[in-house]
């Protein structure tokens, strides 16, 4: 689905990403992991097309991102970025309806249904008539996620070839919403959606991700299957902390970090 090959990106004198290669397979849940300042958000911005790649290539369905028209791209991928405050008194439903413009003609027919289902899934039905700028950070994140889901045409269940890019989408959500959201993403992935997200909580990565890329100081440390890549020595290398794997009675294995 996405092919990043030998991408190096410097801003000013500082090299932000150095010789990164990564392949993202369709219908998988991918996580970008690394300490602060590792270049996670920059890598995600390369994928959204916000930052063009100067060296190396970012191919989306075998075409460079710059070859896409914004409107065409918007039909295939949705983004939830890290910051979204506004000085204007938009209502939540207006924020979500902004994504209607991005829908393809086929999806546009059920526009309000996409909105309806997306808000149900994100549990924001009661927030819809309220002002976006007066919500809490977690509520705002849920609204933004609902917008992204609407943009992906959630009611049509046609996720093949569609991509969802998220930058710490759950950082302010409470824990129940976080888990519900990841479960939802997992379900959509199984139906063909490709998800790429920046995440900080290693246990969430361990639980939900199929593939991960570990970044540190702009360099790729490791990449591959999440369960195999999140090894104790890799975590030690990235964060300088210890980790253990704990099995619950249910049989689920969890990743626990500690000093």
């Amino acid at each position, binding site marked *: 689905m996405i092919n990043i090959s030998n991408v190096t990106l410097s801003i000013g004198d500082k090299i932000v990403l150095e010789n990164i290669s990564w392949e993202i397979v369709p219908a998988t849940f991918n996580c970008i992991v690394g300490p602060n300042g590792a270049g996670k958000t920059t890598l995600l911005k390369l994928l959204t097309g916000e930052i063009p790649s100067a060296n190396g290539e970012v191919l989306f369905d075998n075409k460079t991102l710059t070859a896409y028209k914004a409107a065409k791209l918007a039909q295939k991928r949705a983004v939830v970025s890290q910051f979204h405050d506004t000085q204007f008194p938009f209502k939540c*439903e*207006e924020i979500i*309806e902004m994504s209607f413009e991005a829908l393809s003609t086929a999806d546009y027919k059920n526009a*309000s249904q996409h909105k309806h289902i997306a808000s149900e899934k994100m549990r924001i039905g009661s927030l819809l*008539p309220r002002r976006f700028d007066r919500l809490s950070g977690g509520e705002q994140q849920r609204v933004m996620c609902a917008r992204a889901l609407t943009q992906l045409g959630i009611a049509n269940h046609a996720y093949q070839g569609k991509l969802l890019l998220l930058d710490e989408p759950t950082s302010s959500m409470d824990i129940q919403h976080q888990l519900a959201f990841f479960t939802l993403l997992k379900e959509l992935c199984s139906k063909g959606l490709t998800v790429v997200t920046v995440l900080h909580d290693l246990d969430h990565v361990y639980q939900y991700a199929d593939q991960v890329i570990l970044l540190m100081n702009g360099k790729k440390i490791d990449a591959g299957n999440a369960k195999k890549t999140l090894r104790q020595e890799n975590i030690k290398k990235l964060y300088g902390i210890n980790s253990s794997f704990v099995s619950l009675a249910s049989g689920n294995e969890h990743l626990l970090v500690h000093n």
Partner: protein
Amino acid sequence: MKNNILQPAFMKTIESSASLLLTVVFIFFSVSSFGESKVKHFPCAINGNSDSKQRLISVGGANTEILYALGLGECIAAIDTSSTYPQQTKQKPKVGYMRALSAEPILAIKPTLIVIDEGAGPPETILQLNRFQIPMLSLAATRDFVGLHAAINAIGEQTNRLEQATQLNQKIIQDVSLLNRYLEKNPSGKDDSSPNQPPRIAFLMNLEAREALLAGIHTAANSMIQLAGGENAVNHFSGYKTVTAEALAKLNPDIIITTHRAVESVNTAPSNTHKDIVRSIAALPALKLTQAARDQRIYIFDTQYLLGFGPRSAEAALALAKMIQP
């Protein structure tokens, strides 16, 4: 588009539209109360003359002075803000600044004649007035007596005051000959050492502590200085320019002339005696370094009297000449 967007907005609109309408209605009535009759009629019955129905609008200080000098003060229905002489002008309705006139209020006065300075505007307003065929006498601001006589004659002709116009011209001619006689008797030499060198004079339109607005050539001040037998200290620029204390010191005029209004803004004199005022002006950093300040040769005039080239100008020039060459 979507009904659910429309609904709450619609409800809110009903609430707010009421207040909006109220505002409109309020303004409606407040305006209607003064919309009509600010324009008073100025009955103009002079000696039971047949032209008692004249309603004049005068734009330009000199024009107003001429109209008053011709005895038409009563017939003036409105003037502009530059018309400040004589005292009676204070009571007249004002049509605003001469370069920012508006057509409709002028039309509402139903003037029989507008005597207007050629520089008045904006041009769109003048065009509109023309389209309404309002009789208009447009006079270029003059800086010599030939032009002044012509203006007086033109106004006299248009207002049926030819006789008075002739008398006024006569008086001005007398004043001019008085001026000339005085200049002959007192040839202007700076001092005995250079008898043919007239004193160098600077006219300051505006005064501040450290700078002043100085009159160059092609100004009314320049003309008056020459009429009074002086020489403008400035000959290197035209119009009015702001100059610093240093530039004034370098110019070093022998005499400084300024206006009452300019003095008002900087005067710190303990009393209102002429001497005190002059002393306080001379002490300003802007003027201190000039010969004029050292000699206390600073003269203060009324702006309109000195610069508004009108019926009093010969008199003003004589007054100035007497100051230059006592």
